[in-house]
């Protein structure tokens, strides 16, 4: 029996090795996100109440926009080097390709979030570190990486990658964005007990629905 898990690991290792060598995606992601957070920090009054109200929006907007720029870069290389076409020739289920890309991107986004959280807490005087927020961020990253990888591969085949990916990705992840912003807002105002479980159900349902739907449909977008 073929060990699909081993193949998945090999594909992830391949992407990570390329990234360690070039450092393009993570550097783009982190730098772009830091620039956005810094611009917000410079243009808003350093008032703790304002920061508590808008902090979550600023943090997650930076993650989303920086993430979509990094995705374009990541999948553009794949398209240029015809890596996807080569992978399609392999006798493996197409979902393995989607999962490998999603896990790789999950690692990139998680690294960038750690940096964004650190920078934001310094620039906005925020105390955002909590276990519940950490769990919520993981759920967000899973959904964002899967949906992003799915649309990233679609957008990489088009001439206007940046705008197309942003337009496809953001409307679809609105429920996920609401989930993470609501939880971050509650974490900033130390109100996490109120709606945590309800929001968690939204985040987890989104992930389950979209992982299922996208793994089912992924083969169709790769068909020639």
């Amino acid at each position, binding site marked *: 029996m073929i060990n699909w898990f081993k193949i998945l690991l090999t594909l992830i290792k391949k992407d990570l090795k390329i990234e360690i060598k070039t450092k393009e995606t993570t550097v783009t992601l982190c730098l772009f996100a830091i620039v956005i957070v810094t611009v917000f920090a410079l243009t808003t009054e350093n008032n703790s109440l304002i920061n508590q109200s808008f902090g979550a929006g600023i943090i997650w907007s930076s993650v989303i926009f920086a993430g979509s720029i990094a995705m374009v870069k990541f999948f553009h290389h794949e398209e240029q080097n015809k890596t996807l076409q080569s992978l399609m020739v392999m006798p493996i289920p197409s979902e393995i390709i989607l999962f490998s890309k999603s896990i790789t991107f999950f690692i990139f986004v998680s690294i960038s979030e750690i940096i964004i959280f650190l920078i934001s807490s310094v620039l906005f005087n925020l105390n955002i570190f909590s276990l519940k927020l950490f769990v919520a961020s993981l759920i967000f990253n899973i959904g964002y990486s899967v949906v992003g990888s799915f649309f990233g591969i679609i957008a990489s085949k088009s001439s206007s990658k940046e705008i197309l990916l942003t337009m496809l990705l953001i409307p679809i992840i609105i429920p996920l964005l609401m989930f993470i912003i609501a939880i971050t807002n509650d974490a900033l105002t130390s109100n996490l007990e109120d*709606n945590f479980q309800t929001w968690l159900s939204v985040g987890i349902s989104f992930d389950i629905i979209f992982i299922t739907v996208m793994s089912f449909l992924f083969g169709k977008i790769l068909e020639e």
Partner: protein
Amino acid sequence: MIRQIYISITGIAFIFTMWMIFLWAPTEINQGQVQRILYLHVPFAWASMVAIVAIAITSILFLITKNDKWDNLSQSLAEVGLVSAVVMLFSGIVWAKPVWGVWWTGEAKLTTALVLFFIYCAYLLFRNYFPPGNARNRIAAIIALIGAIDSPIIYYAAQIWEQNHPKAVVGPLATEESSLSGEMVITLLACVLTVTLLFIGLVWTQYQTNRIARIKNV
């Protein structure tokens, strides 16, 4: 010929509905004249919601049968659906300001309507940016399907989100339910029927236009 007759019937129905809205239906006591906007807002909201469900169905049919007519129908539905969404959003904003006291709130239906508008935009933008061919049609069908699946999740998430946001307190509709008189209900139903006729007519026309454009491109 059938299409011309259909368009004529729709035109007559539209004029008759305008008479009902502005001359026959009584003025609502609490909201005044501005309430008449709802006679157009509600039917266009209905049309834009029906369009996304119809696109999902035609997209599934396209993915199963690979017949180009389903893809053409999906495209036509999305184009008319986008126009309906724009009319719905614009009329909603114009109505909300005098009645609620604000142009926009974080209300679930409003958020869902706005995201629905973006989904239509994304679908049509994809069709414009992607090189024409079988791959484009297939991926467009997949995007439409994902958009349709996402719509109820957006509505659910927006409903929970709404609980965390202040509700509109200005205006008579903010705290109490409204009751429509008999004439108002008849006018609203007539408007829904007319806009549905208009919607079908526009999709039909757009379908023919797209079909000719596709034949020319081939």
